[in-house]
């Protein structure tokens, strides 16, 4: 199984990722998921979410999940996952996952399983960045806001 894993503070360029997709002649389905920061968290408006990762462990846990996915769905040809770190503004993507397989059944199942497992074991945490009240000067969040 081909795999791409990227943990990055850069914005996720989903059109470029889609344009770079390569599929073998036996592949009939590509599922992609884009997880985007919503404008509120627990009912309160926010301007962004700050993502923090324990990087080495996150990569290790992602690769363990990729190994498990390859064993459970051996027909999956390609798996690509990009998780953004640092401050991700409302309406920007924090996560992009793509699964390529011969048929949509295993592509949907593998993609959903991977996201569920990621949220269980990959050490990434988020902290909402509150909306600044209108008219108040906006200062960058202090370090301990991350």
């Amino acid at each position: 199984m081909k795999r791409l894993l990227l943990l990055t503070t850069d914005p996720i360029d989903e059109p470029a990722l889609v344009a770079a997709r390569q599929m073998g002649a036996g592949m009939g389905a590509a599922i992609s998921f884009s997880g985007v920061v919503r404008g509120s968290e627990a009912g309160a408006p926010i301007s962004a979410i700050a993502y923090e990762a324990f990087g080495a462990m996150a990569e290790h846990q992602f690769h363990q999940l990729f190994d498990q996915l390859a064993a459970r769905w051996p027909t999956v040809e390609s798996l690509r996952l990009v998780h953004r770190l640092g401050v991700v503004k409302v309406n920007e993507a924090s996560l992009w996952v793509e699964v390529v397989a011969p048929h949509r059944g295993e592509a949907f199942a593998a993609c959903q399983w991977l996201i569920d497992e990621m949220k269980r074991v990959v050490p990434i945490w988020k902290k909402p960045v509150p909306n600044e009240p209108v008219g108040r000067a906006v200062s960058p969040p202090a370090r301990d806001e991350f």
Partner: protein
Amino acid sequence: MRVTVHLWSYFRDLAGTARLEIELPVGSSIAQLLDAVYRVQPKLAGLRKSTLIAVGVDYQRADYPLQPGDEVSLFPPVQGG
């Protein structure tokens, strides 16, 4: 033996530090390490039930036997995506 403890996310904020060095008797388990951590960082003790524990980059359980020089990470439930 000496074990390094790394704190992540709001555990670090609560403790006011990202790193602790803990002296333990040789052969101590993770459970014994947690007891020692909570003596110096009592604010973390109330979160014990929801604490995730890794040694290096792998999750471990409370009965895991620690070795000198182990790097232990303590953190709250993960929230990626």
